């Protein structure tokens, strides 16, 4: 009897070790994130970003498939540049590569890396993935129109007290809260 409970508790301990740890205190995370952003300002003279890296990627992709088409498009052309350098040899592209690595390191340390789909209970996996794609599409389009996403505008421009960034940030919350009711089946 005692040996059984002994094994049981040992398993329980092991189970506990591999359990995902709870997320950190949001204020401390925020301060950490703020210091990363501050470091970017001081070292590089620029803020963080994310969507710009994907613009470079898309532009490079279009250039590969249809070089003439890319060269004639005023938007892609800006990311491709004058052809003297590879469009992917770009600050934001390397920064976003770091984001993948940093996220993975943190996830591994906290046992939070898991192949799964994040969704509420009332939606199928297939529908959730469709919504993810549509949401991503809207986000990509909106970010280009607004000249940046949550990182490039809200965080960076917010800390630098840029008028457009603050207007943008308010609108993001407005748009999200406005849409939240219609999306409740996906999340709650």
């Amino acid at each position, binding site marked *: 009897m005692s040996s059984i409970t002994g094994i049981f508790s040992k398993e329980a301990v092991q189970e506990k070790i591999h359990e995902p740890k709870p997320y950190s205190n*949001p*204020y401390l995370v925020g*301060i950490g994130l703020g210091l*990363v952003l*501050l470091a*970017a300002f*001081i*070292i*590089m*003279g620029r803020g963080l970003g994310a*969507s710009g890296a*994907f*613009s470079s990627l898309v*532009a490079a992709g279009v250039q590969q498939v249809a070089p003439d088409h890319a060269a004639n498009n005023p*938007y892609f052309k800006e990311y491709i540049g004058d052809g003297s350098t590879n469009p992917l040899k770009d*600050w934001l592209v*390397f*920064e976003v590569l*770091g984001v*993948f690595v*940093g*996220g993975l*390191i*943190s*996830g591994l340390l*906290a046992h939070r890396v898991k192949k*799964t789909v*994040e*969704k509420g209970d009332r939606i199928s996996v297939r529908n959730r*993935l469709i919504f*993810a*794609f*549509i*949401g*991503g599409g*809207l*986000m*990509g*389009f*909106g970010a*280009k*129109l607004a000249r*940046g*996403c*949550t990182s490039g505008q809200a*965080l960076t*421009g*917010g800390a*630098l007290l*840029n*008028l*457009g960034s603050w*207007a*943008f940030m308010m609108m993001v*919350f407005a*748009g*999200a809260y*406005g*849409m939240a009711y219609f*999306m409740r089946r996906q999340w709650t």
Partner: protein
Amino acid sequence: MNAPFFKFDFFSADFSLVIAFAIGIGFGFALERGGFGNARILASQFYFTDMRVLKVMFSAIVTAMLGVFFFVAFGWLDLSLVYYTDTNLIPQVVGGLILGVGFVVGGYCPGTSCVSAATGRIDGVIYLLGVMAGIFVFGEIFPLIEGFYYSSNMGRVFLPDYLGLSYGMIVFLVVLMAVGAFAAAEWGEKKMAAKSGGVK
């Protein structure tokens, strides 16, 4: 001290890519620690059950803003050399709305979706494909919306100049606003937890 270092040629453009990678690691690490690799946590911001997005974002903004202010005040940082985008008010307002809708539909923003994809979330990967599709569509129809894209350009607008208040005053107001928002968020979370009858 002469910051931004890069603008004063402390290191080469090639080395800046190494720094980009290092800063990205810090960025990704912080996002994951905050729970931003998980769409459910991000989305719960918009149902008032977990206000992490607001807390993390605003404490980051306040931290960086205070840091920049004091670096400028000590004469260490030349703010005119720190890059930020021009204000094009109407496209940015419309873009912000679209982005907000996309946030709650897709569950991520571009930065957080990278973290989610890196930690194995399939929806994060699909979301990223969506982002690229959205950018592609934007690029393709860009000639049609070019006029709108460049409309209402106000140049580089610094909030203190725009509002006619001192830099320090605005910093103080933003801090007050953030602390107020945090207090409201804490209070709201407690309310929501009590309402759903569960103990958080």
